């Protein structure tokens, strides 16, 4: 690994998240990203260009990713057990790793009605690892108990292959503790205080006596790839995101 340089001062929050997600991906994995997932898409591309050259990236919306008929093939691949990693998000996430994508309040009289869970329930059970990414970090998002469960982190369904692996937010990374079956804090991003993370999370992060590490800054290699070939690919896959983050 090359040492980070002064250029890290200009690193933007989404770039830190992209790097954090990228580092969670392992060489050789089949990684799929769904709709509205620019951060995981960029992370998968970055991982492939850095530490995981044998990653297979299946990015929804990527003009270079050809399917035979349509995105339903991705569900067939998941059923066959070919997808290692998939990314989900939610409007509520609780300590047990449940996610809510459906509505807020009472199901029959919701205060907010959302698009719904789509394939989250099925995919979270059939892929080996789920990584949750969020674009905010506050107590309305990280709640003690979700109003509606679209996907569980783990359960005893006989067909389940894996479950929640990590949660990456704009402030930190969290890991799913498979023994306790709870989300615990793993690392905070450079420049973020532990107190800020705790204050903005609506459940106990299982810190206890642990010393929570600060995530290593982006390496020169990561930054070069991110600001070079990853940007170029993202410009075609997620043009609005590329414009927002990099002004492309």
């Amino acid at each position, binding site marked *: 690994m090359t040492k980070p340089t002064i250029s890290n001062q200009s690193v933007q929050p989404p770039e830190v998240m992209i790097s954090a997600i990228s580092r969670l991906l392992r060489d050789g994995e089949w990684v799929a990203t769904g709709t509205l997932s620019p951060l995981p898409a960029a992370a998968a591309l970055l991982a492939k260009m850095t530490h995981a050259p044998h990653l297979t990236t*299946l990015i929804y919306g990527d003009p270079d990713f*050809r*399917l*035979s008929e349509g995105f339903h*093939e991705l569900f067939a691949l998941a059923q*066959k057990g070919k997808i290692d990693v998939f990314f989900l998000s939610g409007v509520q996430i609780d300590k047990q790793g449940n996610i809510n994508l459906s509505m807020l309040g009472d199901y029959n009289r919701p205060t907010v009605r959302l698009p719904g869970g789509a394939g989250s329930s099925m995919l979270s059970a059939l892929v080996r690892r789920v990584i949750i990414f969020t674009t905010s970090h506050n107590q309305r998002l990280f709640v003690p108990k979700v109003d509606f469960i679209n996907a569980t982190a783990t359960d005893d369904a006989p067909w389940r292959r894996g479950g929640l692996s990590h949660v990456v937010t704009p402030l930190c990374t969290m890991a799913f503790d498979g023994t306790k079956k709870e989300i615990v804090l793993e690392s905070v991003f450079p420049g973020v205080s532990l107190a800020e993370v705790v204050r903005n999370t609506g459940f106990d992060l299982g810190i206890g006596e642990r010393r929570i590490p600060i995530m290593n800054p982006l390496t020169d290699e990561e930054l070069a790839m991110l600001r070079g070939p990853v940007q170029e690919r993202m410009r075609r896959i997620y043009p609005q995101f590329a414009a927002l983050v990099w002004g492309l």
Partner: protein
Amino acid sequence: MHSDLMKVRRDLKTVRDPYSGNEYVVVLPIMPDVAIIHAAKGSRSGEITTDATRNDRLLAMAAKKTIAVVEEIVEPEAVLPGRQEVFVASVHIDAVVLAPVGAHPTACPGIYETDAAHIREYVAASKDEQGFRAYLEKYIFGPEDHKRYLEVVNFRGGKQS
């Protein structure tokens, strides 16, 4: 449900459809360990075009591993299905093997036809053990490679290379 198949096929079961309440016969899906399919065109990235009538895409999607034997390797942009062809994405293909006229003595539609004379010869040869062994020696074990095989079978036509 009332055919004799139900008497001889122990893997066929009946189940009550929870929506209509009707009884249906169900069968487990077939998931081959390996599927080998023949395709007209393929690319190094693993996508192929194949004959639409043969359900090879379904086979590729069902199998745990799929090997595509192709007539020619082209650039990914040129892997476009023609009439009577379908495109199979690389996510369903594990390996691509370049073997022009690899379907011989059967046909690769649009490129070469079935070698009926050769199949008749095979049928005749397979009538007894000695004839079958002679066939294997002449056509399968004898030729050192596929190119030589095509010379031995006197292959003409198609895009021979």
